């Protein structure tokens, strides 16, 4: 029996092999790579009868956490979309990308596909979250794919910030649900507190670009088109929809969610008319479709569940096709500016058919899937109570007509004053994949196959939580949805000639209205605050810096001392021996002398005496390892100081008397405080010491006689590993700081 994991692993192997193999094979590699999504798709179709498919293995047994997968009808719908559209996208990418960039793109796309298949089949909140975060990261990498452009980098960071913060909120919600129900398995969840629902919903809203987190999606269009078509229309942005739908039997109807969806739907439908870039137009239209789905899930009736299931399918088909077409137009004409494109039917006739078929579906014209989607959505709301929602759907339908007319009539059949010229004709890889999707959109609508209908009903049942048996058909009779549909189509055609004027007025909307400006302002505020804090802490002078640090330490010490009465007593033990007194006197004398030495090198050398005295003290207490290390560190510190001093200006005494007095006060208070602290620690009741354990077992367990070293490399090896990692990072930090020269104008070199 083929299990789900095999496809996940196959995808990861593909990702690993994409670079080494893909570089040799060139564009034809994409055809080879399609074997993975294609086999996943075929397996998905054949396993339709055997649902649900369950698989589970222990992950973190100590936490009772399993890596469990369960593919139900809703999951399978996503599975088929991800693998099916993935297959087409891989072919498309082979034709669209430069051969040099293709392996890297396919590598990240494969990881993304694995993560999406994982989300579709996850049965456990933590398993799902793992894949969820992988999609955020791969999305970041793909939006920033052309990292040499500032726009790409900014959009990538923006998308990562929004979906990343959303991911954390989602995690909080999932953990709340997990603790409430004592398990992380979705199937065993029975209750959900309002706060957990809110957190999960916010997480899903960021992922699925819902108002007010919607603005990252149009900017994500900086990614190469195969990515936009795959991640940002057909699959990843629907992950939020998927989770909401999956949990909707648990959450029940959520009116607030329905309203958020409605606001998103209207707002995005309006803004889609204000763009001239084909991909951005489609991106706004995608945000609107996502809003429609959230609205329907929030509504929570059987009819709404069926409409959601159908919308997921229909939207993926036509929007995927439209995105690929827009990318192919860009590829062939060198621009995707709707105002510069015209007469495309003559330049690129092969693209006309996919564009027209998919646009008809988008516009909701009868016999296409988009029409049924709209009918189902309209039928989901009662005319008496759902008027605002019905209006939202109609607005989106009108906007859909205008967008569809722009994508077909305007750019394919009309002439423009400044028209772009044909660069090179599209290869079959650029028009066949969108055509396949567009034709599927027609077939799904025109011949609503019995299996398809049953499948959608099963999906709807998964979303709603109980059986759904509503008939899906093209013809529902002369009812309200039909009249509303006709009204919307007619209004759309009437308004269409005014699109250029609508567009200019919408384009001039201030950025704060679209919330993108607010995000930027928030970003700036964060930067300024952190700069402010850093400037306060990182004083320009070493003296100020030390005063701040020592002062803060003294305050903390004082507060702790005031709350915890301490006894100060000399520890019991053998008295102080003569040679120890001599050593300490040496150290003390050197410490006093160092203050009066008028040059840096001398001061450091004298300070070295303190270090040596300490090292000898260690020897007298039979700690040769410490002594050795202390001396070596001291030597190297002096060497480093010498190297630095060579670059400093001659030493000058510039402190005033008062400043010196402050220095002295702080030094004396700090030194005394440390002494008192040591005494307090030594006289405090001792915890049972672990030293004896180490000393006794160092040879029997650690195979070594040097206890210190056995602790470092065996008992506490993980700590040591952390320390040497920090050391390496510190070396890198010093390196960059020293090499980074800031010019007077603030420009970095």
């Amino acid at each position, binding site marked *: 029996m083929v299990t789900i994991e095999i496809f996940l692993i196959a995808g990861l192997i593909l990702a690993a092999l994409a670079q080494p193999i893909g570089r040799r094979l060139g564009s034809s590699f994409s055809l080879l790579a399609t074997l993975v999504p294609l086999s996943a798709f075929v397996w998905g179709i054949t396993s339709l009868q055997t649902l649900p498919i369950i698989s589970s293995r222990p992950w973190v047994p100590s936490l009772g956490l399993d890596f469990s997968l369960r593919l139900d009808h809703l999951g399978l719908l996503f599975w088929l979309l991800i693998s099916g559209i993935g297959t087409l996208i891989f072919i498309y990418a082979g034709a669209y990308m430069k051969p040099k960039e293709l392996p890297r793109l396919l590598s990240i796309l494969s990881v993304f596909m694995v993560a999406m298949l994982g989300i579709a089949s996850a049965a456990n909140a933590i398993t799902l979250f793992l894949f969820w975060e992988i999609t955020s990261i791969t999305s970041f990498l793909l939006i920033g794919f052309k990292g040499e452009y500032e726009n790409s980098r900014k959009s990538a960071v923006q998308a990562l910030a929004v979906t990343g913060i959303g991911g954390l909120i989602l995690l909080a919600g999932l953990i709340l649900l997990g603790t409430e129900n004592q398990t992380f398995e979705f199937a065993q969840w029975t209750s959900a507190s309002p706060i957990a629902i809110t957190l999960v919903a916010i997480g899903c809203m960021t992922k699925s670009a819902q108002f007010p987190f919607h603005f990252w999606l149009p900017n994500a269009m900086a990614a190469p088109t195969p990515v936009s078509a795959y991640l940002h229309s057909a699959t990843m942005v629907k992950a939020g929809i998927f989770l909401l739908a999956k949990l909707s039997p648990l959450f029940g109807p959520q009116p607030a969610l329905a309203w958020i969806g409605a606001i998103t739907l209207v707002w995005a439908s309006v803004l889609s008319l204000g763009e001239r870039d084909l991909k951005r137009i489609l991106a706004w239209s995608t945000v609107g479709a996502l809003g429609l789905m959230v609205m329907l899930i929030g509504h929570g009736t059987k009819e709404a569940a069926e409409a959601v299931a159908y919308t997921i399918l229909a939207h993926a088909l036509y929007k995927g096709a439209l995105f690929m077409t827009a990318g192919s137009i860009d590829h062939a004409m060198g621009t995707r500016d709707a105002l510069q494109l015209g007469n495309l039917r003559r330049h690129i006739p092969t693209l006309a058919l996919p564009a027209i078929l998919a646009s008809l579906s988008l516009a909701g014209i009868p016999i296409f899937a988009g029409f049924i989607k709209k009918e189902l959505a309209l039928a989901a709301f009662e005319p008496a109570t759902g008027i605002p929602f019905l209006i939202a759907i109609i607005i989106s339908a009108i906007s859909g007509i205008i967008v569809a007319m722009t994508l077909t009539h305007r750019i394919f059949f009309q002439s423009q004053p400044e028209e772009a010229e044909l660069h090179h004709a599209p290869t079959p890889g650029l028009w066949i994949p969108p055509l396949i999707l567009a034709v599927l959109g027609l077939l799904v609508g025109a011949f609503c196959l019995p299996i398809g209908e049953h499948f959608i009903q099963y999906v709807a049942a998964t979303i709603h939580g109980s059986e759904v048996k509503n008939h899906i058909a093209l013809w529902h009779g002369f009812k309200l949805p039909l009249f509303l549909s006709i009204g919307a189509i007619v209004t759309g055609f009437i308004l269409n000639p005014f699109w250029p004027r609508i567009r200019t007025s919408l384009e001039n909307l201030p950025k704060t209205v679209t919330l993108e400006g607010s995000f930027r302002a928030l970003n700036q505020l964060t930067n300024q605050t952190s700069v402010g804090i850093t400037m306060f802490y990182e004083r320009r002078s070493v003296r100020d810096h030390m005063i701040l640090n020592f002062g803060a330490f003294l305050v903390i010490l004082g507060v702790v001392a005031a709350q915890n009465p301490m006894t100060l007593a000399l520890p019991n033990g053998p008295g102080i021996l003569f040679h120890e007194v001599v050593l300490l006197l040496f150290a003390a004398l050197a410490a006093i002398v160092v203050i009066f030495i008028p040059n840096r090198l001398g001061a450091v050398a004298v300070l070295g005496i303190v270090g040596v005295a300490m090292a000898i003290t260690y020897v007298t207490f039979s700690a*040769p*390892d410490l002594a*050795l*290390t202390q001396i*070596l*560190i001291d*030597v*190297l510190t002096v*060497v*480093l100081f*010498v*190297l*630095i001093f060579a670059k400093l200006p001659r030493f000058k005494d510039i402190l005033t008397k008062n400043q010196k007095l402050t220095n002295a006060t702080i030094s004396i208070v700090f030194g005394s405080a440390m002494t008192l602290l040591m005494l307090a620690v030594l006289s405090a009741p001792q915890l049972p010491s672990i030293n004896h354990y180490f000393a006794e077992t160092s040879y029997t367990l*650690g*195979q*070594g*006689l*040097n206890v*210190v*070293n*056995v602790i*470092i*490399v*065996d008992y506490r*090896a*993980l700590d*040591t*590993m952390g320390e*040497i*990692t920090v*050391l*390496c990072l*510190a*070396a*890198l930090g*010093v*390196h960059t700081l*020293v*090499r980074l020269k800031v010019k007077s104008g603030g420009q970095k070199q």
Partner: protein
Amino acid sequence: MRSILLQTICRFIIPFLLVLSVFLLLRGHNEPGGGFAGGLIAASSFALILLAFGKNEMKVAMRFDPKSIAGIGLVIAVLSGFPAFFIGEPYLKAIWFMLPTPLGPTKVGTPVIFDIGVYLVVIGITVSFLEDMDE
């Protein structure tokens, strides 16, 4: 600027210092020493070269980029924890075995490998500091 006295002494003692550092590294498990102390001794011998001969000579003596040495040391330390997985023990659990050598059977274990990693990291980062400070 260069002192002939220092240079002459360096020529004599640096080989000994380097041998001493390896000696300290290897005997560290039973007597004072270990990767940290050994690494510091090796690093101080490079510091001596820097002071006596200059930066270029230190680079020649190092042969490799100090940061690469530190990185390799870190990788060695990380990898030394993996053999434990093969006998079903947690990460970094020590494994010891006797290795026949010309000098007689010698006890070898993953902590020694770990210590070699620490040794390399300490050399690498200290020399890297020295190099940066001498910019």
